[in-house]
């Protein structure tokens, strides 16, 4: 079983189910929870950063042109960014499409 996800035998859990490696949550892939993905139309985007602020997983980073791009390893597909975007630049697309 994968130790980095914490999914281990009961014998291998740290004492009291503690987390002994700081920052290990960064290794937890939450991207596979997703059924829809956010797709940004950079023609419409006004670079306000609301998607970056509201994303509960801090998924967005700004690129050198000033646009916000999501890290799909973590994006859970919750749709908050699409809902909050004031320019309607983000649409949620089915993962199967």
């Amino acid at each position, binding site marked *: 079983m994968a130790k980095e*996800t*914490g*999914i*281990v*035998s*009961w*014998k291998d*859990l*740290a*004492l*009291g*189910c*503690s*987390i*002994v490696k*700081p920052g290990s949550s960064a290794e937890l892939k939450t991207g596979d929870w997703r059924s829809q993905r956010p797709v940004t139309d950079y023609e419409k985007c006004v670079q306000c950063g609301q998607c970056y602020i509201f994303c509960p997983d801090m998924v967005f980073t700004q690129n050198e042109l000033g646009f916000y791009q999501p890290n799909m390893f973590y994006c859970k597909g919750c749709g908050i960014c699409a809902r909050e975007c004031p320019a309607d630049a983000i649409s949620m697309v089915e993962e199967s499409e």
Partner: protein
Amino acid sequence: MAKRVGIEVSLAISEAVKLANVDVIAAYPITPQTHIVEHLSELVADGHLDAEFIPVESEHSAMSTCCGSSASGARTYTATCSQGQALMLEICYIAPALRLPIVMTVANRSLSGPISIWNDHSDMMMSRDTGWIQTVAENGQEAFDLTLHAFRVAEDPRVLLPTIVNVDGFTLTHVIEPIEILDQKEVDRYLPPYQPQMRLDPTNPVSIGPVGMPEVYTEAKKAQDEAIKGAKQVILEAWQEFGDMFGRYYKPVETYRTDGAETLLVTMGSLSETAMIAVDQMRTDGKNVGLVRLRLFRPFPFEEFLAAVRGVKQIAVMDRALGLNGAGGPLATEVKAALYDEPERPYIWNYVAGLAGRDVTIENFVEMADGVEAAAADGVRQGYTIINVRE
């Protein structure tokens, strides 16, 4: 050298905590536990004990503070009972899950309502499956000895679980008894300094108490289950070593005049001493009655209990709490469960007695022994009787 002194049992418990050289005490006063923490606060204030005494605003805060303090690597103590323990119960589940070796005295008291401050085992039963190790004292000397034993067991790297010492409120806590108080050198020999296996430390950060997702929770509980079952061996070793050092030997299940007994009484706590007198009297009258007392309540000492009762015809289990579920008292339910897999099962009748300080007399124990024999002869099943109830 140990000194035998006449001392109130509560104060003797405080002296044991002082001799254990605790680092932190976080407690909220509640009758009949009050004298224990009052005396500890005096010992700290007068400079006899170098510890933090944290006078918290509730029992919920007391146990929360104890968790924080124990997680930082400090030897930690508290005491409570009844409503106070009910208030701290949320955190009582967390301490063993986080494997924090806190030691707590519970000055056993009934639960309201009706409002009652008097002694029974309702609080012990309320917390029976929280994951704490639990021992039960019969007299003042045991309350003192078991307190030191509790630190020794809780902090053992093979255990690391919080431990309760149950002491009957008033009937033990408020009486003055001759108690042998060990000296510091003797206690230091028995109880080494606490060596935390994991602790909150800025130079080596860990997260204690994170969320356990469905993928992890079952494994976490399995690990905890193994820990409390595995604790028994260490509990036995620590009693053996205590006996070797100081001459007082303790067992998880104590028997009294059980040789050749056909009928057994099963008890826990201070009333066991009354039961012994009753057994002496019945033996003199030619009745084959013996007594089995549980000193270890959690983990339940199945093996030792079964060995102690094997071969008898009938058992009268005395409960000092009423499980409001139609099945009588919780101890009897456990005793029956323990016996279910035995090829030869004795007949069992349950007596609920001594609720909220109601006296249980020698005559009552005779009544229980006679009663279980009569019920066995009649073949009535699944029964319990509340002793001394006015019709």
